[in-house]
């Protein structure tokens, strides 16, 4: 543990650490109190700025926004996993004809900002007179972006399985296809799971970019609620509520990832493979 970084403090050290701790706590609480005080002063906690949330119509708006967020995220997650699987297989192939284009596609989409990909999905079909649902524009962007990252996670996961595993499989006469399907994938899957879930958290958060093309997801709903002048433009209350929903959703997914990781490391069979680290190619923010 990181406790190797410092000695167990003696009496003077303990006093000093306690002092710093108290000062830090006071500073943090002071800052927080200042924020709350200013919000109070500017009427952010006034009833009229919050009363919208009491009403069924507004709650329905929020639930609809949540549904649109989850729908886009769900479809995009499935498509991104498929995309990732196909292109990871392409990159792992022995044939240059498959490997080179797969590498190009994955590297390309990892270099383009998600916003630009969403614009591609939205503007380009429209320009050629083909009407596309905003949800699909968002999903196309999310799929290409996260799919190419997932392709890298898959590849790293397969490569992380100890060499002896595939060597042994080849030695008993399995073909490449069989080695991949029967030996590598089942083991790699466990190693990849935490990284996959983390990427899905990223995907869920990124649906918020739908606001740029006014796809009616959570943040767009938050903007509408916050933009009502009759209620004193309650942007602050509205965004606080939206943030709480996102933090809860992503937090639940993160807890799932953490739980999966714990479960996985308890299994004796997974010795041959280390979890895919969230570094290098597999880290997106």
């Amino acid at each position, binding site marked *: 543990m990181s406790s190797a970084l410092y000695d167990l403090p003696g009496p003077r050290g303990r006093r000093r650490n306690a002092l710093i701790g108290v000062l830090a706590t006071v500073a943090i609480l002071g800052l927080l109190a200042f924020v709350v005080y200013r919000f109070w002063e500017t*009427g952010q906690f*006034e*009833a*009229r700025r919050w*009363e*919208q949330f*009491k*009403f*069924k*119509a*507004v*709650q*329905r*708006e*929020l*639930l609809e926004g*949540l549904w649109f967020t989850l729908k886009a995220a769900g479809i995009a997650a499935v498509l991104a996993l498929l995309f990732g699987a196909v292109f990871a297989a392409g990159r792992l192939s022995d044939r240059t004809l498959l490997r080179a284009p797969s590498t190009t596609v994955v590297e390309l989409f990892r270099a383009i900002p998600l916003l630009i990909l969403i614009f591609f999905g939205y*503007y380009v*079909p*429209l*320009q050629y*007179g*083909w*009407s*596309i649902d905003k949800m699909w524009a968002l999903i196309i962007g999310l799929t290409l972006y996260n799919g190419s990252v997932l392709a890298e996670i898959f590849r790293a996961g397969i490569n992380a399985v100890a060499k002896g595993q595939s060597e042994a499989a080849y030695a008993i006469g399995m073909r490449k296809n069989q080695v991949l399907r029967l030996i590598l994938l089942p083991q790699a899957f466990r190693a990849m799971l935490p990284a996959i879930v983390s990427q899905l958290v990223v995907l869920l958060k990124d649906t918020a970019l739908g*606001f*740029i*093309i*006014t796809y009616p997801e959570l943040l767009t709903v938050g*903007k*509408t*609620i*916050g*933009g*009502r*002048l*009759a*209620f*004193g*433009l309650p*942007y602050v209350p509205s965004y606080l509520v939206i943030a*709480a*929903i996102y933090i*809860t959703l992503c*937090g*639940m997914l993160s*807890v799932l990832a*953490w*739980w999966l990781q714990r479960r996985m490391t308890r299994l004796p069979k997974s010795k041959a493979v280390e979890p895919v680290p969230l570094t290098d190619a597999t880290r997106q923010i």
Partner: protein
Amino acid sequence: MRMKRVAVVAAAAFAFTLTACGEEGTPTPSGAGNGSGAAPASDTCSTSGTTFTADTAAAVTGSPTFDKIKSAGKVVVGVKFDQPNLGYKDTAGTRCGFDIETAQYLASKLGVDPAKIEYKEIPSANRETAIKGGEIDYYVGTYSITDKRKADVSFAGPYFVAGQDLLVRKDESAITGKDTLKGKKVCSATGSTPIQRVRDEALTEPENIVEFKTYSECVSQLLDKKVDAVTTDDAILKGYAAQSPDDLKVVGQPFSTEKYGIGLPKDDKAFRDYVNDQLEAAFKDGTWQKIYDGTLGKSGSPASPPTLERY
């Protein structure tokens, strides 16, 4: 396992807050202002009370747009949702305003029950693409007729004439017209005509031009003193000023002529002529006046129908 329990509790609390204890009906602001002045205007949508009945005998020969509407049995209309008295959606989800009722009137004349209108909220910057791509059948939302836009879309109308003006804080005295904007931060919607005019005529320095997707965001920045003026058509600005009369005012020196048209797919002349005919009929039989007085007229000044410009 403590983390897990926390997550479950959080999820339950979240589900509870969203589903439980909701009051039915349309929320109406209680008017708990900063202790000064009148209560803010109600957020409940009010209409002019005009009823539009679908004209089932409607027929437009040689119009692909009309054929599409006819076979779909519904019409897809592009609108705004955050402009009080023009195109607004209240907290109950009801839409109202001058543009909305104009759209409903046209739908009825196209043989579609106004209840069957599918509204799409299209931001200013995406209007041409949405019409060109066939995402919507027509657009009614403070859409100025310009020659440049005519290259991409067709216009029926104008059905209203507005002018670009400035919305400022109530205590503002330095800004009295378009020539007093130098060195001031000016906000408007991305891709809108007003912001292009500010840029083209260099009314303020490029670094002082602020753009957001919606006017509400601009108004919020104005109240927070991050910008000094919000500019767009007076018809829109008056709606905001009427909702917050203690904090906002319209300068009242319009510096342009904005002819609002109905955005239509390009080169469907039969459809355009038909829509123009229907607008003309509304101008003549008093329907236009009734709609205007019941919506936009409440926050602005009296007006009479404009002259159509057929092309």
